[in-house]
C-alpha cells in the first residue's frame, strides 16, 4: 500500500466521525520504482491532506517532506522528486493501520490492508 492510498483511507466503523488519518504501524517496507509524472502530482496535490501525508511519511522514515507546503513549490523539481518518492514509491508491506478514534487495528499483510469490519461494527 502506498501513502497515496493511505491518504484517502478512513476508518469506516459505524459511529466513528473522524476516522482519519489512520496511524501506521510499520513492520516491513518496500520501495518500487514508478514512472515520474509531474502532471499527476500537480493534479493530486489539492486533494491530499498534507498534514496526514507529512505524518505518514515520518512514520515510514521519510523526513524530507516539509510540514508546510505552498503550491509554488510544485514548480521545484527537487521537491517533486521527493514528493513522488514518498507518495508513490514507498509501499507498506507488513504492519497495520490504526483508527485514531477507536484504536481498531486493520492488519496489512503482503501490502494489502484488510478493511473488513465485524458484524457489530457495521
Amino acid at each position, binding site marked *: 500500500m502506498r501513502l*497515496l*492510498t493511505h491518504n*484517502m483511507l*478512513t476508518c469506516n466503523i459505524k459511529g466513528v466521525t473522524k476516522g482519519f488519518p489512520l496511524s501506521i504501524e510499520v513492520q516491513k517496507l518496500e520501495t518500487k520504482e514508478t514512472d515520474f509524472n509531474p502532471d499527476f502530482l500537480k493534479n493530486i496535490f489539492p*486533494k491530499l491532506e498534507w498534514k496526514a501525508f507529512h505524518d505518514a511519511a515520518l512514520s515510514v522514515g521519510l523526513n524530507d517532506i516539509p510540514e508546510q507546503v505552498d503550491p509554488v513549490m510544485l514548480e521545484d523539481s527537487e521537491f517533486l522528486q521527493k514528493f513522488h518518492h514518498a507518495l508513490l514509491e514507498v509501499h507498506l508491506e507488513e504492519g497495520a493501520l490504526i483508527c485514531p478514534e477507536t484504536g481498531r487495528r486493520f492488519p496489512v499483510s503482503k501490502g*494489502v490492508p484488510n*478493511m473488513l*469490519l465485524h458484524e457489530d461494527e457495521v
Partner: protein
Amino acid sequence: MALRPERQAPPEVFYNEREARKYTTSSRIVEIQAKLTERALELLALPEDGVPRLLLDIGCGSGLSGETLTENGHHWIGMDISDSMIDIALEREVDGDLLISDIGQGLGFRPGSLDGAISISAVQWLCNADKSCNDPRARLKAFFSSLYKCLARGARAVLQIYPENSQQLEMISTAAMRVGFSGGLVVDYPHSSRAKKYFLCLLCGPPSVNSVLPKAIGEDGGSDSDDDSDEEENGTVDVSERQRPAKRPKNGKKIKGKAWLLKKKEQRRNKGVPNVPRDTKYTGRKRKARF
C-alpha cells in the same frame, strides 16, 4: 448450464483459490473483462488531457480490469472481498493498491478524494442476503451513499452489472438515485439477448451540460439479424445463457425416424447379426395404446 455464481455462495466463499485461478486463466474472461473495462473507461468520460487520474476499481478481483486502467496510464485503488482473488492479483503484480473490503459495508475513503470509479460485474452481488445480518437494501444504500461521498464533484462512476432480473436492476438503480446520483442506465446491444450489457453511469453532483448520458453501442440496426455473429464480433458474455436450463429435446419432434431404423437394420444384417426382424409396413410405427 450452471446457476449464476451469485446464487451459489457469497462472493468471499465462491471465489476460493480454485475459482479465482480459473477465472484469471480463462483467456475468454480475460478478454471480456478488458473490453468491458475499456468501455467503462469510455463511459467515464475523463478529460482528455493525458493527466493520470486516481480511480477506484470496485470488486477488482484479480486485477484484470485494473490492468486496463494501468495501460491507460491511471493510478487506481482496487477493492475486493475475496482474499483468494487478491492473492492472484498480487501474484500478477498489478500496479494498483489493493484492499480487502466489503463494499456493502460502505467505502472508507475521504470525501471527494477520487476522480472516478469503475466496477465490472460486481455490484449485483450486493443484492444477495447471504447472512441474516445482510439486508440487500441497507447494503446497497451504504455502498452508494459512501460512493457518492468519496467521489470528487462532477466525477462519474460506471458500474457494469449482470442483473438477474428487472426487479434487481430497478433495486440497484433506485438505490443509486436515492442517495443523490444523477445519470442512468446505458444498455449496449439492447436487441441482442447474448451481447446485452448494462452500464449504470452515475454522475456526482447536480446535472450539467456535460452530464448527458453517452449513447449505447448497437442500439439501432442489425442486431436482430443474428445473435451468434453479434456475439462473436463483440466477444462478450451473456446474462441469459447463465440462467438457461439444461438442454431438453424439443417436444413432438422425433429424433430417430423410420429411415434411421431401416438403415440400422440393414447395417446389422450386413454384419451378420442373426434374427434381425424383417422390414414391413409396420416398421418404425408406434404401438397402439392398448398395449
